[in-house]
């Protein structure tokens, strides 16, 4: 198969692209996404939430060519998994002179995730990770994450399947800043996960394959598998889900109203204690 723009041998399909045209198109789509959704505004200080996995490395690789970015990494404490991606991240940031800050669940006053041994590790992990990003991104205007098209289509479907449509307002390419909390942006919003890995591979960014032992237990994993099955029969299914969400639910200007603040950390919360603080208190 040949590249549909230059006739060189294609390395990827949908659309057919050679290495050079693919890399160019991949980066263009990121700049277009940033522009389309006004993800980064002039003078904003950017912090990239980085795990050392393919998504965050690819994001750093692209953003650092045009912006002055810093990396913030949360170590959840997952033996045999996170240590390896953190090593990859350290090397990557050193080579590109990107400042890197590492924080762990212990810095929040919580135990390592594997020591907590929760029934639903991914929900605990997500809540504490979000809290760590919130607490340690003071001084930045935006937190950029490596969430890609697949992640977003999964999140939308998960909320629909759980009948939690009120949570859809938290999704979208840019979540506005709230008091003391940076805005969150997703420059890979319309980029398929498969292409992120291809980009890393073709750019020579080393990402050792490693998988969190908890991932296959998650609802997200099941939804992701179903979406991939769907995509084979109906190419474009993931993008259609996301574009429909944008039309029907995305309100970029509207800050998420939180009725109360947490009495322990003063973060947004609908209860006396926010979810993160409840977890930290229960753990101690």
């Amino acid at each position, binding site marked *: 198969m040949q590249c549909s723009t230059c006739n060189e041998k294609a390395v990827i399909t949908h659309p*057919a692209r050679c290495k050079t045209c693919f890399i160019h198109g991949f980066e263009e789509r990121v700049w277009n996404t940033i522009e389309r959704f006004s993800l980064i505004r002039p003078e904003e200080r950017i912090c990239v939430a980085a795990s050392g996995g393919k998504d965050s490395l690819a994001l750093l690789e692209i953003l650092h060519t045009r912006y002055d970015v810093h990396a913030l990494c949360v170590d959840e404490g997952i033996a045999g998994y996170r240590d390896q991606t953190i090593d990859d991240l350290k090397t990557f940031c050193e080579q590109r002179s990107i400042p890197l800050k590492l924080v762990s669940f212990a810095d929040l006053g919580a135990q390592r995730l594997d020591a907590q041994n929760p029934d639903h590790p991914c929900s605990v992990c997500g809540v504490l990770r979000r809290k760590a990003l919130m607490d340690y991104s003071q001084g930045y205007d935006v937190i950029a994450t490596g969430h890609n098209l697949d992640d977003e289509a999964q999140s939308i479907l998960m909320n629909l399947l759980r009948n939690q449509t009120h949570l859809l307002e938290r999704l979208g390419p840019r979540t506005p800043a709230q008091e003391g909390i940076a805005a969150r942006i997703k420059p890979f919003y319309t980029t398929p996960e498969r292409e992120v890995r291809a980009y890393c591979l073709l750019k020579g960014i080393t990402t050792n394959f490693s998988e969190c032992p908890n991932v296959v237990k998650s609802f997200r994993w099941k939804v992701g598998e179903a979406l991939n099955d769907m995509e084979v029969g109906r190419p474009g299914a993931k993008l259609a889900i996301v574009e429909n969400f944008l039309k029907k639910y995305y309100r970029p200007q509207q800050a998420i109203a939180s009725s109360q603040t947490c009495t322990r950390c003063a973060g947004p919360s609908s209860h006396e204690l926010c979810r993160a603080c409840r977890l930290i208190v229960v753990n101690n």
Partner: protein
Amino acid sequence: MDMQVYIERSDEHKTLTFTGSVQELLDLLEINVQTVLVLKNDALVTEDEALTDTDNVNIITVVSGG
């Protein structure tokens, strides 16, 4: 000679007697093309690429685990 296939996600090495396209190999192994990229002798190739017994095939996963 047989084809050497490495499947990253399950960390499996297989030796197969196979001639056909990348897509046919994935069908045989029951792997969804959406979840992988295929390298033939270390180069990324498309699903229509022809594979023969002398090739070294690497099936890498695109789904990030966590």
